[in-house]
């Protein structure tokens, strides 16, 4: 049984469909890279998987639980970083992480330790007592990642996790993500193609709501490209040209 199973997922708004007939699955411990141009439907798919939006058609299952029928069970098992990190500007980093840990039902006794743990793995330990609105964009992003990691959820859904980070911070997040594979199942969306090749095994390319590629990275070149060594970027541009 796959950790994440999506069948024929469709989300329609009044005059258009944001996503149309999406079908994919992610095995336990796998990392799936979600690629697509802006407005392709990546964030919408993630919002449906995390139970924030309902699908118009189709099903989404996380850890065997249907996202629409049993949302609480799903939410207990996911960590989610939305496009805009959900931060409270007036809180301190520590206060915020403690609050989110409580929301995620982290048991009281281990709460402080858990907050310290995620702070350390995302490198925000030295800004714990700063008020969030005074942080730089990079630090804010890292706090966003930290809150997704609270409770060590089996499934992590990260929407553009390296957004706003400088190259060395990007490298840190990349190694963080690679370290999570195996124990956690991840879906991450990004524009930064080199990162996908570095961290993900499988890739799903989405364009205007429809799936245009879904395969392991090494197979993509042979399926869609002409030469063996065609880059992911070229494949991406070719598939999303329409």
């Amino acid at each position: 049984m796959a950790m994440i199973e999506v069948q024929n997922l469709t989300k329609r708004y009044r005059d258009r469909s944001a996503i149309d007939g999406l079908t994919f699955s992610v095995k336990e411990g796998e990392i799936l890279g979600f690629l697509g141009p802006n407005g392709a439907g990546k964030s919408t798919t993630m919002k449906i998987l995390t139970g924030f939006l309902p699908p118009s058609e189709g099903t989404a299952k996380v850890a065997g639980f249907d996202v629409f029928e049993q949302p609480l069970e799903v939410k207990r098992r996911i960590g989610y970083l939305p496009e805009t990190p959900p931060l409270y500007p007036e809180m301190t980093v520590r206060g915020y992480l403690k609050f989110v840990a409580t929301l995620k039902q982290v048991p009281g006794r281990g709460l402080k330790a858990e907050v310290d743990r995620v702070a350390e793995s995302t490198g925000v330990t030295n800004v714990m007592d700063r008020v969030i609105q005074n942080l730089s964009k990079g630090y804010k992003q890292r706090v966003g990642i930290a809150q997704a990691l609270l409770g060590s959820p089996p499934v992590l859904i990260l929407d553009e996790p390296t957004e706003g980070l400088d190259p060395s911070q990007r490298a840190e997040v990349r190694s963080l993500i690679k370290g999570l594979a195996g124990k956690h199942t991840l879906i991450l969306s990004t524009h930064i193609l080199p990162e996908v090749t570095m961290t993900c095994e499988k890739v799903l390319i989405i364009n205007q709501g429809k799936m245009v590629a879904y395969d392991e990275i090494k197979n993509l070149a042979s399926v869609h490209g002409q030469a063996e060594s065609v880059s992911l970027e070229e494949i991406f541009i070719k598939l999303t040209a329409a």
Partner: protein
Amino acid sequence: MRTALAIARKELSIYFTTPWAYAVFTAMVALSSFFFMGLLQSFQQVQEMAQEHGWNRLPPDAAVYRNLTDGVVAQLWGVVLIVTLFVAPFLSMRLFAEERRNKTFELLLTTPVRPIELVLGKYLGGLGIISTALGLTIVFPLILSVFGASASEAGAALEWPTVLLGYGGVLLWGATCMAVGMFISSLTESQMVAALLTFVVLLPWMLLRGLAQGVEEPLRSFVNYMAFDSQLQNMLVGVLDLKALVFFLSVIFFSLLLTHRTVEAQRWA
């Protein structure tokens, strides 16, 4: 339940560590003080007139001015009710609207928090802040009891049971304003719109009594029943009115229910 308390604690910590609530407190105290002074002055005037001419010669409704409790405090609570109506929307407006604006609504709805816990937690936070705001007005009865003299020679200047019951009525009204304000806040992303809409809902409620004059029975009785100040009249003068309690608790319950529905509706968007 633990989650609801954590949410309440978060709301209160944000209220108390940012300037906005303190600005609202200042407005509350300033307005109440202003009217308090006015009431004291009227009281003094009537007392002086009574000294001169005797109580029998004064019009009957001046009888309330025989003691501080009826002459000042009961009317003060009436004024505080109106100040609360103006002030509460500015406290309740951020309860949900801010979450949408910060994009933290997504956080709340993708963590294992039940909508009921979310609504209760936020309402508890709102109750905390309005109680603090209204708690500031207790200073007026305290001033009166320290500096005032009682109508009879011995005894306290104020009848505290009456005062406290009236204060209870004020708190009940504050709780109702917060419940209505929270519901309206859940409907919009803009705090300004939330505050304005709350005001637009609460203000006619206050003016309903005036409307009652222009309509006939049985509508008049209905309109009079619905007007909040007629509900609270008895409480303000020290008569425990269960009818009023039930009325406002029903409004609070209904507002919380509607808020819950609005939060749930996100799931069906």
